[in-house]
């Protein structure tokens, strides 16, 4: 082999000597041309037609930008929020009217729990309010470490990591793992925070029909075939399924056991968002994994916020250290944001204490949910969306008027009627242009353990009255 190469080299040198002069010159010119092409400036479009300074000035003078924001009509309902005076607990004062609260995500009634308050106050007396820094720069408090280990213990996972904002939790966690070129399979009903996380990850997004495992399998199979065509690429393309435990937009539960089966079959990782189901589903409130009896280690990452059942602020992710630890340097909302105020972390710890001490609270909530679900079944003109165990249900119009705005107006008038009758309900709000799949307009009904039988009777009769007077 080496001898052969040497021979070729010798022959080349010989050929060079023997070649005629014009040939060498031609080759020389060609080489120079190649060099020129290599080093010449890249082609720029606007260099092909030079504008004079006068023309440029005219263009600059002429340019009129759009206004920063389009004008908003002053009487738009979103501009004038309902004002809540005092704490948003079981009894809530809206625009001066005292109502029974069927709107705040205060599932376990911990929002004005005395024990939680006392712990928050004690923490406030020790640490003050703010943390004045991100976790990396003296923003890590002993309370944060305690909350993380408590959450990990509660969920029976290796590690947990807390964020200072519920929305930022899953929105930061997804792009920490999934990068450009990776593939994410997502349920169509996924909440807005997930959608933002997907967008930030810049991965390929494949939506499957809501809770339709056949559709998901079809996409997975397609991807598998694609991978077989290009195994080299497939070896570095990470694949994720992102689902919610209990969907906030549809109030139903994901079929987790089937998802886990698909996970191992197609070797895709599962990220589970449990903001609605954490502290709600399962015997001990561990969420949808406990509800289905799925081994929690089979889920690669669980994320939830501490703003609903836990009634504090912030969010957390939990799972195995191999997965979670990565966020401590790559979770943008974790690294670059000030840490959670210690008093809110302390409130969350006390909420966990209560949840651990008294797991009966979850069965109470479950019974209430079922009860409300059945009570709301037969309201003429309104359709209940959700499953009996969901603590946040949706009431949609049975017959849509065909226009979203009119539907919203009708529902809004029902809500207003109920508030007048001392029942606090709210419309489910969405950014209509930004949502990938916009859910139908609905009234949100939130169930909490504090609601009594009479309260439920009241909301049902109120809704019936409202519908009979307003929907004709």
């Amino acid at each position, binding site marked *: 082999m080496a001898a052969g190469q040497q021979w070729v080299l010798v022959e080349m040198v010989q050929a060079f000597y023997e070649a005629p002069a014009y040939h060498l010159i031609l080759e020389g010119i060609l080489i120079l041309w190649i060099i020129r092409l290599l080093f010449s400036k890249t082609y720029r479009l606007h260099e092909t037609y030079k504008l004079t300074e006068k023309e*440029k000035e005219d263009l600059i003078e002429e340019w009129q930008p759009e206004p*920063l924001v389009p004008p908003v009509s002053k009487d738009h309902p979103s501009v004038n929020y309902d004002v809540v005076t005092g*704490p948003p607990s079981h009894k809530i004062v809206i625009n001066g009217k005292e109502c029974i609260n069927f709107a705040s995500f205060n599932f376990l009634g911990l929002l004005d729990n005395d024990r939680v308050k006392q712990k928050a106050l004690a923490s406030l007396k020790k640490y003050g309010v703010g943390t004045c820094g991100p976790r990396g720069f003296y923003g890590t408090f002993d309370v944060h470490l305690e909350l993380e280990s408590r959450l990990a213990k509660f969920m029976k996972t290796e590690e947990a990591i807390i964020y200072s*904002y519920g929305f930022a939790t899953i929105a930061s966690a997804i792009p920490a793992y999934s990068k450009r070129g990776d593939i994410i399979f997502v349920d169509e009903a996924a909440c807005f925070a997930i959608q933002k996380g997907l967008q930030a990850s810049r991965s390929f997004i494949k939506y499957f029909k809501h809770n339709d495992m056949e559709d998901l399998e079809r996409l997975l199979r397609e991807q598998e075939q694609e991978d077989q065509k290009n195994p080299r690429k497939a070896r570095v393309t990470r694949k994720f399924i992102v689902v919610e435990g209990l969907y906030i937009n549809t109030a139903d539960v994901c079929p987790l056991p089937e998802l886990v089966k698909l996970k191992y079959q197609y070797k895709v990782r599962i990220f589970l968002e449990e903001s609605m189901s954490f502290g709600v589903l399962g015997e001990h409130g561990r969420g949808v994994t406990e509800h289905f009896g799925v081994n929690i280690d089979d889920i690669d990452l669980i994320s939830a916020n501490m703003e609903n059942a836990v009634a504090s602020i912030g969010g957390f992710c939990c799972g195995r250290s*191999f997965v979670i630890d990565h966020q401590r340097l790559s979770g943008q909302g974790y*690294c670059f944001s000030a840490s959670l*105020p210690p*008093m809110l972390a302390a409130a969350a710890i006390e909420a966990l204490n209560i949840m651990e001490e008294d797991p009966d609270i979850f069965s109470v909530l479950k019974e209430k949910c079922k009860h409300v679900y059945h009570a709301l079944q037969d309201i003429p003109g309104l359709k209940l969306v959700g499953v009996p165990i969901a603590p946040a249900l949706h009431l949609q119009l049975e017959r849509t008027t065909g226009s979203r705005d009119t539907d919203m107006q009708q529902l809004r008038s029902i809500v207003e009627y109920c508030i007048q009758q001392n029942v606090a309900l709210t419309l489910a709000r969405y950014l209509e242009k930004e949502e990938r799949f916009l859910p139908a307009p609905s009234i949100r009904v939130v169930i909490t353990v504090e609601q009594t039988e009479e309260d439920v009777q009241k909301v049902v009769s109120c809704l019936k009255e409202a519908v009979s007077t307003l929907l004709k």
Partner: protein
Amino acid sequence: MTESATNKLANGNGCHRTSNGKHVTKNGFVKTHCLFQQPPKKYRRPGEKNVPYNASLYKRPFVESFEETPLIVAVLTYVGYGILTVFGYLRDFLRSWSIEKCNVACEREEQKDFVPLYQDFENFYTRNLYMRIRDNWNRPICSVPGAKMDLMHRVSPDYNWTFQHTGHVVKDVINMGSYNYLGFAEKIGPCAEAALEATHKYGAGVGSTRCEMGNLDIHKEMEQLVARFLGVESAMAFGMGFATNSMNIPALTGKGCLILSDELNHASLVLGARLSASTIRVFKHNNMQSLEKLLREAIVYGQPRTHRPWKKILIVVEGIYSMEGSIVRLPEIIALKKRYRAYLYLDEAHSIGALGPNGRGVVDYFGLDPKDVDVMMGTFTKSFGAAGGYIGGKTDLIDYLRKHSHSAVYATSISPPVAQQIITSMKIIMGEDGTPLGAVRLKQLSENTTYFRQKLREMGFIIYGNDDSPVVPLMLYMPAKIGAFGREMLKRNIGTVVVGFPATPIIESRARFCISAAHTREMLDTALRAISEVGDLLQLKYSRRVHRAPSVSWTSEESLLQD
């Protein structure tokens, strides 16, 4: 426009940075059309940070310096990283052959045949460089992050792979790391008392979004106060500073819009710009020539390929840049923005409360009109000792955001005690509590800043940034000195922040001090003594400038920049 004398002087400063690169290409427009002149080409280098400015727009001297990196230091820094990398590969090799114990958490057995979650080289830096000096970050504290704090003592039995808390508390560490500019991180005093009361009244959580059932009266009160404080028509507050940027920029711009962003903008601004689906172009840090060039090109040539005019252009800048300690050249940006009809988004995360005679941020500092800034954004985490962020501006803007902000529709509102902390601290700064305490704090902060910066300069350290910025970066350069500095300072009972790549350019590792109004002169002196000691020990006094006593006249301050 004629070139002023000060401009010439500053041009002559010509920082000789070590980075080599192409000279700035000639951009071909005639000088008289540009608002800001292109400086003579021969002085300009891409890495240069001392750019000339239009002195006529400033009401007060604007002294900002970034001393060049000495060549030998730069070379040694690269050598340092080279050695670390070689050792990193060696140890990775040893680990892969199980000669060295691997401490990294591993994938589950059941999932070994999945596509690896991390690319192997992805964590090379973490494993081999960061891990060596990891003890300098995430130090847990167990007290108020005030002027002095208590640290939890921790040890690592396995070279920083894991930490164990010994239960011992390191008491009264002087805190030079927290963003507690006005000293409102307090557990006693009017703010804490008001927050206690708010907790009693409301509890800690809210349990709904602003748009649905989470708009409390306390939020309304806070927003009205913020608007009054900023001098804008209306304001809105959000639960997290990071999210204020990343969730509101997408509401303002979209496809067909252009965002001009400073190269050193915070990750949240970058994320927000990216989520908005607008085109993003980056201009050099605080460099008005670079910005003007981009503005002109954008308007003249329109969108790429289609050449449709841009729908709108949004300039995104920060008030104080937290890693450089520099202050935005706001008067010039406002002049540019008016000339080219662009919109301005100003992130005052570090400057609100910390700058200006009334603590109202850079706008106040330069004596400008807040109405000239279209979007005033800032955070409550720093100067106010609370959490969250705000956006202020015209009523139209805020009304639009109330309807379209991702945060208002989908995220839980601010916790009531946090809102109360914001209200009380802001009232103190404004003097509405009937005491001069706010003014005292503002004065104290500005004096502390001047004193601390001046002393460090005199000691011969290279200090970056503006003379009035309470963020004080001290250059360390070499990777080994990052860890050494942090540890030596902690030994002397002073908590500092050290930062290296990727938060800074690879050779510009630094320590950062955040001055607070709560620091007493004694604390600063103690800190300065320790810094000087450690500086001698680690040979950090790189500066080759001759330091004179500060003078008051405009030209002589300029000539301070002349070496």
